[in-house]
């Protein structure tokens, strides 16, 4: 177990190093931070002072180490666009994105798993066919179009739900939550559905194919032969054994949810990190982009690590030598 964790950590390390190197290269070579920070009028002495202050006169390697040290402490300097500390900006926006991503993941699991079980059990019923067609559309529809269609139907035509923003938020310490107010919950519905729909179809298809595979195995036939009721066979035996890959994929997809949150947040003007990032890309705001890149990389690496460990914990076969690896 211990050696497994260590080897995984050792694999994660180069990823983080490469990503931080790219971030640093963006800082160092893209655009001229000195020119951007000084503005129009400056003297040569002021320029020299700023270069020294930013440490730009030091050797490359020293600069990179300083950058790494600062990054580990969450220090990414000032945003070019908003002239505020990047860490502060991101901390302010993080709760919105995390709440959105979590709700989307919950929707995807809560709806996708039952739909997958149903379509796996009753393969030829018309409802299964409907679900499958629906999932094909869900895969082909781009996220932003789903959002626009939902806005058109539920905000413009029916007028039931708000189309932008987070509604009223409640502050709990440094965390601001929209889950405790009525308007906050209403504002969450459409973005969460938009973000979760793709994952929902993915989970549904995965559960369906896994169910179909498991139902063909001998121990299911044996359970039926013992006269166990359908419910016990389907849920106690079949579903339980499909959950390992489902957990893996769902966990890995959490990262994809955070990435696609960029699109959803733009459609719904949701004040999260994704919107911050896309505004920064538009304005070439390097510090925010670099910080976001590092943070996303950290999130992805830790999710991968946790999923690996979960897999190890759930599937006893992996503990006896890594025979069946996927």
């Amino acid at each position, binding site marked *: 177990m211990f050696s497994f964790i260590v080897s995984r950590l050792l694999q994660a390390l180069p990823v983080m190093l490469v990503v931080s190197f790219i971030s640093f290269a963006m800082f160092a070579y893209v655009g001229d931070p000195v020119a951007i920070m000084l503005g129009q009028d400056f003297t040569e002495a002021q320029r020299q002072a700023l270069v020294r202050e930013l440490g730009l006169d030091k050797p490359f390697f020293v600069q990179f180490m300083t950058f790494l040290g600062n990054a580990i402490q969450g220090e990414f300097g000032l945003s070019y666009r908003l002239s505020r500390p990047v860490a502060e900006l991101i901390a302010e926006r993080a709760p919105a994105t995390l709440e959105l991503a979590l709700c989307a993941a919950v929707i995807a699991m809560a709806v996708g798993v039952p739909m997958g079980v149903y379509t796996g059990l009753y393969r030829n019923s018309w409802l299964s066919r409907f679900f499958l067609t629906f999932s094909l559309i869900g895969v082909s529809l781009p996220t932003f179009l789903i959002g626009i269609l939902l806005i058109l139907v539920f905000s413009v035509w029916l007028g039931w739900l708000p189309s932008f923003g987070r509604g009223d938020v409640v502050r709990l310490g440094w965390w601001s939550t929209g889950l405790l107010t009525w308007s906050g919950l209403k504002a969450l519905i459409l973005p969460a559905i938009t973000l979760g729909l793709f994952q929902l179809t993915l989970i549904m298809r995965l559960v369906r194919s896994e169910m179909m595979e498991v139902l063909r195995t001998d121990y299911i036939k044996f359970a039926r032969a013992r006269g166990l009721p359908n419910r016990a066979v389907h849920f106690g035996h079949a579903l339980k054994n499909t959950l390992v890959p489902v957990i893996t994929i769902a966990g890995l997809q959490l990262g*994809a949810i955070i990435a696609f949150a960029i699109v959803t947040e733009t459609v719904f003007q949701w004040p999260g990190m994704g919107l911050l990032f896309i505004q920064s890309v538009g304005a070439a705001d390097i510090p925010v982009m670099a910080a976001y890149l590092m943070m996303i990389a950290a999130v992805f690496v830790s999710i991968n690590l946790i999923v690996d460990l979960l897999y190890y914990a759930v599937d006893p076969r992996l503990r006896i030598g890594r025979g069946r690896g996927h």
Partner: protein
Amino acid sequence: MKAFFDSDLWWSFTRSPVTMLSALVAFICIAGAVLAPVLAPHNPFDLASLQLMDAFKPPVWSGEGDATYPLGTDDQGRDMLSAIMYGARVSLLVGFCAVIFSTTLGVVLGLLAGYLGGRTDAVLMRIADIQLTFPSILVALLVDGVVRAALPREVHDQIALFVVIFAIGISNWPQFARTVRGSTLVERNKEYVQAARVIGLSPLSIMRSHVLPNVMSPVLVIATLNLGFAILAEATLSFLGVGVPPTQPSLGTLIRIGNDFLFSGEWWITIFPGVALIVMVLSVNLLGDWLRDALNPKLR
């Protein structure tokens, strides 16, 4: 030509009505886009022909529409049908070029990794692994963002189209590289390759004329499936406002522009480009699915 009509591929094509329909739809989309300058009823970029009087005309069947603008007009009086045809042109161009770019890059690197093995293999596959940790749309966004920041604005506006193609293409090569590497590892040890090595051919020409033709068929399938993805990625980038320049609006750009008018009731400005995008991607994806099943002997 006769050999083609006798082949298994053609047979399975004629057996699947969905495939034939999607091939027809894809053909109509591509033809409409490529021949837009000939077929489109108006030229949406000819500023002289635009009349602000014609702005916000609804589609023709809603009663208040104008027969010259079958799908209505946008805020500047542009014909939506023509704008969509020209937009699909840009979308398809970016999609095709991005797929060609990532296919070339992926196949070359995959061949090198698989055939040479050793350190080349380890380094290339490690890079692919790292990139695959992130969703490709995020990689495309980041590459686009970095290039955008690195270039001065005037230069960037001129080559924005290439930047988008590069960003989408680079975000997708690992998939090709991995597939090609896998098949190359199998082919490398077969007798014909050994024979070619024995008669003294250089590794480069073995890779090019002996291994490459034998690893190409899965690549074709992935490329088809990737075309749909590339078109969607371009639309997403353009919708986010970091894609193709506004002077060459793609379907994604049209959707973004139309999004501003959703609330004033002009739904057609955003919905029709959206429908065009979905129809195009869906037909390409269905074709790709069919190709994958038809070329996979296990499923026959």
